[in-house]
């Protein structure tokens, strides 16, 4: 990106720059393409043979070089000089527009989300994907409290999700308590684990904190795998009760003394009802998470989280107790993961340690970072890019991970601070458009 602004490069003649760049590109692509494209193992009969595909490889290299040359030419076009940061400008305008219309966007998105199951095109598959989408959005919003606002890098967030899921799974199967009773318990348990993790890491920051949280995530998963008497180990817990609608169950026929959802409303039974109900349940849970976080940001606790992210020493010099601030961030972030976990286990009807591997933590963290640390809208966009696009491109099979990677690279190149890197102040002295110097947008 910086070639055009780099004075040393700019001093060179454009032709020379383009040729050198093209050669470099060809070299890099050659190194990558020999093993990936040039050589291919093929089974002929019973033996394995090495097949070479040089023409294809050179075609790919040629295409890459041509693309690079065109890109350079486009960058060096005369009109590009004054607005060298054209891409960023567009991004800044977009996120600034998003910032000022945030309420409207939120309402439109919410109405669209409510209407989704009743759309003509929606079927079980669409609603299911939307439910997965919302689970990740909720987890992203929860982790946003810890990472985005309080600036505590947490690589083991999925542990709290697991605690929530197993809390519901165990209590519901062992004691038979209802989902609505277990939901707050799951949140409470996860929050307790958040504080448990929080205490030993109070003095840690950055890389060190990341490593300890990573270890914590693994500890939880390994305990769940190995404590066979309690958690049934790798077999997982099955037969987890499904949630009911104020006592009305979602099934064709109900046992004595219980009504079914279909009877309650006098409609024909459809297996779709439960799917839609689960969708609205997670929509409500995610909505609560969002409202809570937005409100929290404007309260002293939330402001202290952000202040802690900015400068812990300054916080202490102002009489803010960093212990309380960190623990509250850990506990509240974990609590929402616990809610999401309870929802996950009632939706699946089955939990096992398999669902709570490190890659899940990594995806949730990637969602928060790519979305723009601390931005609620950014999380939604990032979930779309990282969870929904790979799901849609399922047909492309082997190119799925490629697209996933490409999306990440694109976001990091175009918007290094995340899709919505713009931070909206929690309080203003001069509302926009009133007297007072308006802050310059520096991105």
């Amino acid at each position, binding site marked *: 990106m910086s070639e055009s602004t780099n004075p040393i490069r700019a001093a060179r003649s454009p032709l020379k720059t383009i040729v050198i760049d093209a050669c470099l590109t060809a070299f890099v692509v050659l190194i990558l393409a020999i093993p990936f494209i040039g050589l291919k193992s093929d089974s002929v009969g019973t033996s394995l043979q090495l097949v070479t595909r040089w023409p294809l490889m050179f075609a790919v290299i040629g295409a890459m070089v041509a693309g690079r040359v065109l890109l350079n030419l486009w960058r060096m076009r005369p009109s590009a000089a004054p607005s060298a940061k054209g891409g960023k400008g567009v991004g800044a305008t977009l996120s600034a527009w998003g910032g000022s219309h945030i309420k409207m966007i939120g309402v439109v998105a919410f109405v669209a989300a409510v209407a989704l199951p009743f759309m003509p095109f929606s079927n079980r598959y669409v609603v299911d994907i939307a439910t997965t989408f919302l689970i990740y959005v909720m987890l992203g919003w929860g982790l946003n409290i810890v990472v985005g606002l309080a600036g505590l890098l947490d690589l083991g967030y999925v542990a709290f999700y697991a605690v929530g899921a197993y809390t519901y799974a165990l209590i519901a199967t062992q004691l038979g308590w209802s989902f609505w009773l277990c939901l707050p318990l799951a949140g409470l348990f996860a929050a307790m684990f958040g504080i448990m993790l929080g205490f030993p890491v109070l003095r840690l920051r950055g890389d060190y904190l990341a490593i300890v949280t990573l270890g914590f995530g693994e500890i939880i998963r390994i305990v769940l795998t190995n404590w066979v008497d309690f958690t049934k180990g790798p077999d997982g817990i099955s037969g987890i009760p499904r949630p009911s609608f104020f006592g009305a169950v979602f099934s064709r026929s109900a046992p004595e003394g219980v009504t079914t959802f279909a009877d309650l409303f006098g409609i024909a039974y459809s297996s779709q009802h439960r799917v839609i109900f689960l969708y609205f349940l997670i929509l409500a849970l995610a909505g609560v998470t969002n409202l*809570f976080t937005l*409100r*929290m940001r*404007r*309260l*002293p*606790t939330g*402001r*202290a989280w*952000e*202040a802690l992210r*900015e*400068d812990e*020493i*300054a*916080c*202490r*010099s*102002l*009489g*803010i*107790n*960093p212990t309380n601030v960190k623990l509250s961030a850990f506990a509240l972030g974990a609590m929402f993961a616990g809610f999401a976990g309870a929802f996950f286990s009632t939706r699946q009807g089955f939990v096992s340690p398999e669902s709570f591997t490190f890659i899940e933590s990594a995806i949730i963290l990637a969602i928060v970072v790519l979305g723009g640390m601390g931005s609620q809208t950014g999380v939604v966009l990032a979930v779309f890019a990282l969870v929904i696009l790979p799901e849609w491109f399922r047909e492309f099979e082997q190119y799925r991970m490629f697209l996933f990677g490409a999306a990440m690279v694109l976001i990091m190149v175009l918007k290094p601070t995340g899709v919505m890197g713009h*931070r909206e*102040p*929690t*309080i*203003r*002295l*001069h509302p926009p458009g009133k007297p*007072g*110097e*308006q*802050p*310059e947008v*520096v991105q």
Partner: protein
Amino acid sequence: MNAMEAMLNTEDDALLDVQHLTMRFGGLTAIDDLSFTARRREITSIIGPNGAGKTTVFNCLTGFYKPTVGCLLLKHPQKGDYFLERMEGFRIAQVGDVGRTFQNIRLFPKMTVLENLIIAQHNRLMKASCFALAGLFGLPRYREAEKAAVDKARFWLDRVGLIPRADWEAGNLPYGDQRRLEIARAMCIDPCLLCLDEPAAGLNPRESLDLNELLLSIRDEQGIGILLIEHDMSVVMGISDHIVVLDHGRKISDGDPEFVRNDPTVIRAYLGEEEGDDDHA
């Protein structure tokens, strides 16, 4: 009787009593048996050559270091006496009302100027919001407290001339504005003692003069004590009521500006000693 009264008065005015403060880092003695008193409605400056231990005094005072020996007695005019060396870092600001600024400015750079000042009033707002509960439901009690906090912030923004830039990100402010914002932020905790670590560093002469006026007006209107570390002698000699000179962690002089200016030990510490040259040989 009169003498007795005079003594009592000076006793009452004492705000901070540093007694035999010693701070060792391993084998290095950064502060060696330092005792001095800072009073209310006075600007007490701590000066000395580089590495004399001035910032270490501040760090002991505000709880970032635990002193090896000695006691730091804060005589809070409203709340009573506190031994600062026994308090945890954040409690000194929270309970003892000691505010400070830093040598290399420590603002919250991504947050706005106004937010910086609101955060300084965290503890009061936290109480008013019943630990976020009243705030979550938007009870009037919290809304009033927030309004009061904004008013206080507006007052200090006005004093340091930052009202027009209240919604800027603090990190985007020019250097001089950042220095003044940090002072305003420390004042927002309603301190009884304000510790300023080189507030004039990096300011141009004009800004430095404005700073002098600001500090004098804070002293006179708020009636608080100011403890000042500064290298700029025009600031130190111009506004100090009382100067403590440190060299290699030891106090070498203590008195009013006129006394310190003419003290031979101070001149020697700053300009070097003629007979002492055999040390370097």
